[in-house]
């Protein structure tokens, strides 16, 4: 593992000192590119009241390549699959090196508040969401209570 780029250090520092509301991220002791993340479910969303654990990994090419992020906590969301993988454009082709960990996490938080069943990752969830939104939302709430509290 080569030395940690200055940028990562800076980001980490700032995340620890001044984390965005509802979000926390801290690098693991054994690997400073590997973060433990928690995201609080946004208000007035089915995930409100839940605290979701995620892991975030900064690849060697970061920031030229995006970080890798996934949910560890089970979540009922059309853009998040059973394995916790997230479908989010900025984590894929819309990545820009001007983005940061902080912005990525904020985006994920926002994704919780605004599920996008038209670009699904978990197809069954997305379908449910489209066909019976209230049931889906209830389901999401239920899961939140069950897994994220």
């Amino acid at each position, binding site marked *: 593992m*080569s030395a940690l780029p200055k*940028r990562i250090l800076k980001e980490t520092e700032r995340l620890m000192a001044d984390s965005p509301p509802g979000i926390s991220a801290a690098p693991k002791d054994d690997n400073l590119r590997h973060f433990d993340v928690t995201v609080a479910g946004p208000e007035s969303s089915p995930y409100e009241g839940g605290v979701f654990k995620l892991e975030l990994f900064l690849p060697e090419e970061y920031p030229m390549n995006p970080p890798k992020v996934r949910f560890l906590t089970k979540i009922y969301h059309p853009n998040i699959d059973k394995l916790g993988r997230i479908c989010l454009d900025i984590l894929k082709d819309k990545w820009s090196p001007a983005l940061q960990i902080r912005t990525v996490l904020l985006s994920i938080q926002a994704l919780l508040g605004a599920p996008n069943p038209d670009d699904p990752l978990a197809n069954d969830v997305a379908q449910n969401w489209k066909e019976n939104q209230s049931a889906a939302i209830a389901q999401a709430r239920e899961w939140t209570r069950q897994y994220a509290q």
Partner: protein
Amino acid sequence: MADSIASPPPPPTKRSSPDLFFPVSDSEEEDDIVATSSALAGPSSSAVKTEVGSQQLDSNGNHRASSASTSQMRVNASRQQDTTSFFSSQNSDDVIPLDSNPAQSSARSAGAAGPSSATLAPRKRGSKSSQSPPASIPASFETGYLGEFVCEGWSLSKGKGYCSPGSKVIFERPRAKNVVTLEDDAKVLARAKEKAGPARLVNGKVVGARAKPIGGKQVTLGSMMGKKTPAPARKPAGKPVVDSIIRFRNDRGFAHEDIVGRLSVQEAGFLTHLLDTDIIALGGSVIDCPQSLSTGSTILLNVKVFLTRTAFEKVEKDGRKEEGTFWQEQKETIEEEAMRKRKDALGALFSRIGVKPLRSNALLLAQKKNGAAEINDNSLKHFSDDARPTSKTGVKRSPSPSKGSTSSTDKGKGKASTANSDDEDDEDSGDEAEKLDDEQMNEIDTIYRKAQQGDKRLEETDPPESFLYTLRPYQKQALTWMTAREKGDESVREQSLHPLWEEYAFKKEHVEGQPIEIEDDDDFVDPSRKFYWNPYSGELSLTFPTSNTRAKGGILADAMGMGKTCMMASLLHTNQEADMPSSPDPDATTGDEEPASKRPKFKQVTLSNQWRAIPTIAKPVNVPRATLVVCPVSLAAQWHEELGKMSEKGTITSFMWYGNDRTDIERLLAQEGKKKVDVIITSYGTLASEYQKWRKIKDKPSYEGGNLYDHDFLRIVLDEAHNIKNRTALVSKACYELKGQRRWALTGTPIVNRLDDLYSLLHFLRLEPWGHYSFFRSFVTIPFLNQDPKALNVVQYILESCLLRREKTMRDKDGRLIVDLPPKTVDVQVLDFSRPERQIYKHLEDRAKRRFIQLDAEGRAMSNYTSILAMLMKLRQCVDHPLLVLGKATEDDEAVEKLLDPDTGDERTSLKEMIAMYADGVAEEEDENEAVDPEFAAKVLKELGEQETTPICDLCTNEMFDEVLLPCYHRSCQDCIVEWIGTCEDQNKPANCPSCGKGPIRLSDLRSIQRRRKRVNPITGAYVDDDGKPSSQGDAGVTLGKVDLVQSTKLRALVRKLEAMRQEDPEVKALVFSQFTSFLADLIETTLTKEGVRWLRFDGSMSQAQRAATIEEFGKKTKEPLILLISLKAGGVGLNLTMANHVFMMDTWWNEAIEQQAIDRVHRLGQNKPVFVTRYIIKGTVEKRIMKIQRSKTALVNASLAGGASKDKAASLADIKKIFGLDEDDSEDEVY
């Protein structure tokens, strides 16, 4: 026969002995005991005396009377103060120096002397030179008793009565021809025997006492001991070599002149040379023998050995022809061969007798600690390449006869010395010693350590007032030392025994009638008993050989940056004072004579010059007073300048003497008054050409003198003296030939990479004897090649006497650092290539690697060594800047071409294309975009101008470096955005602006932004605006330009760092080192100019005047940053650039020491700011591995330094493999 021996002689002996030694007649029994217990000395002493006596007897021709006469003699002796007592009185022992006491000698001459002189006289006759006593030998000295040993012999006679235990024997060499001497010896011995016979009878035990107590009673009784059967069996006469036979016979004169037997060649063969050359005399007696002899029966003998006067004569002088053959590989002359044999034989003798040095110098002790053998055995092994000759051929005799014996002895040396010596252990340990180590070169520092011991305690001397600088304490110590060296005052440092000599003492020979003294080696030994032996050369001496020589001067080898120049200047001043008032310094005159007379080579020169010098010059200057300073051309001006600064006006004037219009040196130095010149400064190059000139003309009759070489200098100083490390180089010879009384070599690296480097310095210093190549070679070079640690020890001892070395990390006696330099911080910046750079590099490296593997596989790597090195150079250049690869400035164009187009032509094209694209691509695009839309520009600039601080780059979150403007007005570091674009290309996606997503962006869309510093940092108004003209939009303080993607990673890093430094210290001065002038000149310069940074350049292409001007310019106060670009080779050495405190090493050189030297231009005395060193290394390139190799200091270093001329190519190839990563488990950061 047996009868006669046994009965008649014995009684008289008995009688006489008691008379003499045991006045109260003791019982035989008691005698036995006494003798036995008492020392060896007993018998030996009697032997000596007996010899004496016997000789006289001989002369009388009355052998029958022998016993009687013997006793008479003794009586006489005792009356007159018995020889014995004479000895004893003299030395307080009854030791050998028979005549040491003049008073005694008179006595001797009167009576007892008769015998003794008689004894010696014949020998002297034999030896050519003996009668004239060499100066170093006290007139009274005749012989010294060395000791005795037990030796085996074989009977050559049959029957009884030839000898019996205790009877004296006389040794002789069989060949009459050889043997005037021997004959004499024989006689002497014969007489001795005669006497001994009696003596023995009386005290039978006395005879055998020392070695074999057994003898005692039975001997007396006349019965023989049980035959020593083992003995004969043990030493079968392997190859009896005629020439090395030593016979012995009994002492009973004519009637029984029969040869009794001869000594075992193997046991005593080594004595023959010594006997023939009259270095030793032998006495002896029978310890044991069969009652009735038959041919070949074993006779056990006690052999006493005396060193004769001859031994201490200076044989060496004849042998010193070496000097003449100095430059050639020496062939062994006859004299040398004789010396060698002598040395070998003495060594064997010493070990055989078991003589132990009272004192050998610490050098030898150190060896012993290492488990090395006694010097006697060990040294022989190392220093005699040929066999040790057993035979005694005279000094001048043909060596041929010795051949046969040689081989046998030789083996004897290795193996047989075991047999020879009583302490056999020595041998083995010696072998172990040879195995010691490879680590020497890595631990050169330890070599110096010895020389540094005690230097802390040197006194401090204050320089005279005319010297304006203040010296630091350690510099004052140096002044003390140097002054002492010049005056020949050795007391400053303790004087030690010459490293090659050992101190011994003659044994006390037991004298009957005297109380028996137990020898105690540890006790104080009367100096008159001491003698010295040089186990290397075979020389013996009675006077104390010191390690110091009369060479005036030495090596000042303080580490770099400690002010060697300054110290030397203070010495100039100090001596100036000493010299001026009283005209001829007594030292000076004598000092002048010595070297000349010592060395024929120089003498001749001197003579011829004086011959002509007289008419030419009025000789106003009888006393040499000028100092000649020889230094690298780059330092000449610095010397001149610094001398000027350090000296009060009018005290010391220096003159730079070089170039084409060199003034007549004599006239120059003859100037008086204001124009007086005290110091001449010249360069090695000038000296060499002057030397050549002089050599051509000096012997022509028309030659008028006036040459530099005709002048006697008071002092010659070689600065950076490692310039003459190659003894065969012209410049080295030029330095050797200079005439001067005091000689100094200044260098931080007296040993660069071979011990031989040192030799040249020693030769220049005329330090005896090390300044002789053959000497140095046999004591240092050859042992070193044999991995004999002794070599290093010898070097240490040489250095102890003539070298002063302190290092910056040393502490004074109070524990403070002697040099208190500001801290030095080394920052190794490991950078990563930009994408195009890495592509090019990787391409190049792959190709080089492939080619190397191919060559290696075909076994042609050796023959293509140069081209491989050239390939490596290309790689190293590429690391600096890809454009360098194409540079015309590279030396080995051909080799490089090969690299660039190995076998596959297309690749070459592609590589060249790649580089071309790298270089040109941007330029083309620039052309396209030459016209910048003014509106666009104005808008941007306005925006930009409003910002006061350096913006942060979104990508790296640092302050922007090489700020570029994207079409969308977003900005970024050039590196960041270029990398982003590259990444996107790799992923086949459009490279949009990271900040706003607009795009795609092409490299050609980027515009660089250059801010006028003044505007950007209004607070720090100190910044001076560059003279670069502002653009039309200049009001904003910002210009837009093309993006110069051609800048290499290192270059940009440098620029960035310079910028940062400028912020901190607007007047910062920095050095930038690179080994590639083209990098400095073409690329860095251009870039700095573009950046508006002032720079100066210093490289090998500049004339001396230009260099001086550059340095001067660099030293001026400025209000802006000033960068000095220095080529590592031209400016790495000697320069004093303490005005700067930042150093940049742009690339990695093979040898870390060179880089260290470069850094020390700044980190040295006079520097009062913290020093920052920045080295740039590119990840995953040859550089990393070069640094590794640097650390392991392997052979390639030398090879590369030597321009590929290394002999050790094989080792280098291994290194090259490492460099290509073929031989090594690459560490993680060496991934391509």
